[in-house]
């Protein structure tokens, strides 16, 4: 069989040479300058190099020409040559389809091969439409703190079939093959593109269980309006990418970038990548979809286990909630009430003990859940479908992830000053909340420069590599930790070394409570800070010092546009001068139309009281 194919291929190749069809095609491609067309550039994933020219970062198996990575025309010639064998045609079905659309192959002279492997893949995936899935922010894991995106190849067209069994679709995921669990190693390797990234296809129910249940992340599903032909070309391109690896850059060439790149390669008329900058944040991916009018035909929300529990709890009365808190279902409840109470309790148990239940390591939790399951199944009431209430706004409606700010103010210590504020991504507790989690801060490279007019000095007031805070309110059902962490540099403003730029690491953990659907939140944490700079007099003469102490904050949101945050921090500095520090801060931000916001900050530190007014623009 193998031999027969080889012989047929050899025959086809020699026949092609004999009648000169290959040179004819190659000449036609050159004449039309196909190698410079967007379609070809996209399919081989070429990008403009620093010094001009084209380069593709795909692993070597993706090229047919030895110089294919840097030579679009040579790769195109080699691809055409390969089509005179069955193996060549079947290796790159999307290239074949695109080149055919331009060169209109004469299939009498270029016999069309049969490709069982591709056909099997195509049939297995069975895509009728494509959905972009956004998995929301997951602060506990550095890999997915900014969210994640994947494609779903839909077997049934929801609108047409009336019922769409999404769990049976295939999810196409692009991810890094990570070889470390160390967050720091991950960060360094991820930033430098050391991990190889790859596409994979897996039934969507794996992804739903992983994200919705195991990590408790909401999913947003964006159904794309693509024609059946376009869908087929995307599938074909995913097939030809196969096991091709690309360097995975956490910031710029990540899941979000490559999913858009794959869509755009197969459907060059989609202009998506131009809407993603050097930082490809998953939320920007779904915004890029919005930039093509009509591309998103429907958006669905799939609630996390936490959102499901909250939705169920919202339907319950006070006495019923008291039952849920005790994981009880006392006999005075009617069957319908028992069903509702037990339904909520089951979600609560999954929320609390998800990992132990899944791994089978938490025997008491497994016993507890089994007990609740048996009690629930004994109530002959079939639960109604849960109608989830989506959060304030879907992620593509959120503010731009990059932020630039200008402002000025006055200080009782240094006089007037001007500030320039920049942040690469993504969101803080004062930014407009639509599309973002209400109580999370997730900033990558935020920095603020300050020019003191009187002294004519320029300060780097602060610059953080990352600044993260997860405010998770406790209630009687769930007692999560509220925590924060940041690392970077800041200008010290105390007698220890006034005006010195110091490296800094801060972390804290504590608790929070919230009211009015999280619009009002109170938090308290115990914090630890380490700062280091050569001019600092720390304990035993070290150029570093430790600060420990409590802090508290109040955050309130009025409507969709106004957020206020007040905070107080006191720290004891063992063995250093001064002995202690404090900081009081009251900030207010008003969101305006056009991705703009106004900001006011009043701050009291030992040396000074300062007021800063500014305007922020989000991109």
């Amino acid at each position: 069989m193998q031999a027969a194919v080889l012989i047929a291929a050899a025959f086809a190749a020699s026949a092609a040479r004999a009648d000169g069809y290959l040179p004819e095609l190659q000449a036609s491609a050159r004449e039309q300058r196909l190698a410079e067309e967007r379609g070809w550039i996209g399919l081989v994933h070429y990008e403009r190099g620093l010094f001009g020219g084209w380069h593709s970062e795909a692993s070597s198996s993706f090229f047919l020409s030895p110089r294919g990575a840097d030579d679009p025309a040579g790769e195109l010639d080699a691809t055409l040559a390969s089509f005179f064998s069955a193996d060549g045609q079947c290796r790159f079905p999307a290239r074949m389809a695109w080149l055919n659309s331009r060169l209109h192959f004469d299939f009498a002279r270029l016999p069309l091969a049969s490709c069982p492997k591709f056909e099997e893949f195509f049939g297995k995936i069975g895509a009728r439409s494509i959905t972009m899935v956004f998995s929301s922010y997951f602060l506990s894991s550095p890999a997915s703190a900014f969210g994640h995106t994947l494609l779903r190849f839909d077997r049934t067209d929801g609108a047409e079939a009336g019922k769409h069994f999404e769990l049976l679709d295939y999810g196409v995921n692009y991810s890094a093959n990570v070889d470390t669990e160390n967050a720091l190693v991950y960060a360094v390797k991820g930033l430098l593109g050391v991990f190889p990234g790859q596409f994979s296809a897996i039934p969507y129910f794996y992804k739903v269980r992983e994200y919705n249940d195991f990590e408790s992340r909401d999913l947003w599903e964006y159904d794309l309006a693509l024609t059946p032909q376009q869908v087929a070309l995307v599938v074909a391109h995913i097939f030809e990418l196969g096991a091709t690896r690309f360097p995975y850059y956490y910031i710029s060439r990540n899941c979000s970038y490559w999913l858009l790149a794959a869509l755009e390669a197969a459907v060059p008329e989609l202009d998506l990548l131009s809407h993603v900058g050097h930082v490809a944040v998953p939320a920007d991916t779904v915004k890029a979809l919005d930039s093509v009018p009509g591309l998103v035909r429907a958006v669905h929300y799939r609630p996390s286990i936490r959102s499901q529990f909250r939705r169920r709890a919202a339907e319950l009365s006070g006495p019923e909630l008291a039952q849920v808190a005790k994981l009880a279902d006392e006999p005075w409840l009617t069957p319908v009430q028992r069903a509702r109470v037990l339904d909520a309790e089951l979600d609560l148990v999954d929320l609390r003990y998800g990992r132990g239940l899944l791994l089978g390591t938490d025997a008491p939790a497994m016993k507890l859940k089994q007990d609740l399951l048996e009690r629930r199944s004994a109530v002959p009431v079939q639960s109604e479908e849960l109608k989830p209430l989506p959060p304030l706004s879907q992620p593509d409606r959120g503010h731009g992830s990059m932020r630039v700010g200008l402002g000025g103010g006055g200080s009782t210590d240094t006089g007037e000053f001007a500030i320039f504020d920049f942040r690469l991504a993504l969101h803080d507790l004062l930014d407009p909340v639509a599309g973002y989690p209400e109580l999370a801060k997730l900033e990558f490279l935020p920095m603020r420069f300050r020019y003191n007019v009187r002294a004519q000095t320029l300060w780097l007031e602060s610059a953080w590599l990352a600044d993260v805070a997860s405010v998770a309110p406790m209630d009687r059902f769930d007692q999560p930790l509220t925590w924060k962490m940041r690392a970077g540099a800041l200008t010290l403003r105390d007698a220890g070394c006034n005006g010195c730029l110091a490296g800094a690491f801060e972390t804290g953990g504590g608790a929070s409570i919230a009211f009015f659907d999280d619009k009002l939140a109170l938090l308290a944490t115990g914090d630890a800070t380490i700062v280091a700079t050569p001019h600092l007099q720390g304990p035993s003469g070290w150029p570093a010092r430790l600060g420990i102490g409590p802090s508290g904050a109040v955050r309130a949101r009025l409507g969709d546009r106004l957020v206020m945050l007040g905070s107080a921090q006191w720290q004891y500095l063992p063995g250093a001068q001064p002995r202690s520090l404090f900081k009081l801060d009251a900030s207010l931000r008003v969101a305006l139309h056009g991705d703009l916001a106004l900001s006011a900050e009043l701050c009291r530190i030992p040396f000074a009281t300062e007021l800063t007014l500014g305007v922020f623009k989000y991109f």
Partner: protein
Amino acid sequence: MRKAIAVAALLLTAGSASAAPAYGTAGCGLGSVLFGSQPGFVQVVAATTNGIFGNQTFGITTGTLNCGPPATPAGARLFIDVNREALAKDMARGSGETIATLTQLTGCSDAKVVGATLQKNFSSIIPNEKVSSDIVADNVLATLKADKQLSCSAI
């Protein structure tokens, strides 16, 4: 979980032999069975050749792609294994997305009746928390098969 992923990988790479009986469930009628073996590769090329082969034969239209994954007991077993925690809840509740999906996978007639049946038989399907997913799958499939009213066509 790890085992389940291995099975899924197998399903992904399994031969088209297992796909053949897939086209037997609702929405995948005779037309799908007859045209279900259309080669996808030719379809993709045809998508751009616009009529070279004639739309009737090669167009990507309804019928060939609208069927679920192999509605075989192996597919259902994988589904039950991977979705065990969610399915257990849905069985106890007598309804939910995993019940609807399982109904589709097993070719049963009515998700509401499937839900009621699994709820009623819950304590024999998952008699205790230590029972393996294989046994749970056995019990789910046996329960559905035993109920003639459900006329599950793919167990």
